């Protein structure tokens, strides 16, 4: 299975977590994902996800003037988003424990 396929289910949680660190705009978010090690991830993929997260009211956006000139859209978590992130945390811990146990059995 390709890494991108595996990523599909967990990228939303990762994005929510990065946004929780502080307000970000699109390019910044993509750079942070890259810095964390998601190198094979095509940067543009974040936009459909951001649109979906916003539609689900997990994140919100505000327009702010940027140094470059045009206005920039900054994303932050909503209360619902905080809740979703907390539950993602729990689900991930459970899942990674289980997978690790299976992969490292007998070690």
């Amino acid at each position, binding site marked *: 299975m390709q890494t991108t396929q595996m990523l599909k289910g967990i990228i939303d949680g990762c994005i929510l977590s990065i946004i929780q660190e502080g307000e970000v*705009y*699109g*390019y910044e978010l*993509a750079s942070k994902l890259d810095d964390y090690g998601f190198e094979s991830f*095509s*940067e*543009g*993929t974040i*936009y*459909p*996800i951001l*649109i*979906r997260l916003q*539609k689900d009211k997990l994140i919100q*956006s505000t*327009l702010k003037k*940027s140094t*470059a000139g*045009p*206005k*920039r*859209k900054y994303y932050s978590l909503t209360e619902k988003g905080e809740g979703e992130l907390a539950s993602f945390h729990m689900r991930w811990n459970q899942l990674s424990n289980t997978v690790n146990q299976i992969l490292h059995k007998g070690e």
Partner: protein
Amino acid sequence: MMKENEKFIQEMRVYLIAKGVDEGDMNSFLMEAEDHLMEGEKEGKTAADIFGRSPKAYAKELIASMDQSPRENRNLIARIIAGVFGIFLVSQFIEGNTAFSLIEIIGYPVSSIIWLIALVGAMRLSSFHNGVKSFLIVYALTMIPMLFTVGVTLLHMRYGTDVLFLSQPVVFIVGGVIILGLIANFTSLIGILTSLVLMVILFGGQLLIRFLQLEGFGWELGAYAVSVIGLLVMISFHKEGPRTFVKD
């Protein structure tokens, strides 16, 4: 911005419009994409690096997450059909045609609808292709409504008997109302000044020919050429003007 990146934004805009995506969603995404491309440019990244090798596949992914607004879409289509038909009717009046046969009354509205379908189809199919291929697609698709319109005119000339006669005052009133309607219709889309310029471009040449009582095919063709060139100039100005506005 790099040419390749600019092309990506333009094509994405055309594709999203043709797919009936909500205008606010579209402008908001294009603003972010433009910003992203410009930031990426500084690090030597191209549109293909950022949005993948297939812009069409990316656009599909994007549309799946966006609201396609059928109601807004239907309104826009209805307005465009009314607009095309209005323009056609006024130019018929200016040419002095005030009697219409059944073939014309049915044929021309139908041809405005076929025009619209062909234009939207051409926009969708031609996006993300290179210049020559995209030109051929637009050319081939606009030939269909063109032939249909010519067909209606030929049929009318051969078999048409006029059934609807409009007197001079009626023509003036109906023509005036249509022009006002057209200006109102286009104002919300492209602004009042551009709409007024559009009216002058569309009807100015023809009116001048009528007023100066110039006769002959050459003058007609000249007026047509002026309209087409005027439209092209207007479209290119529109492209260079301020493009992104955000509706939140």
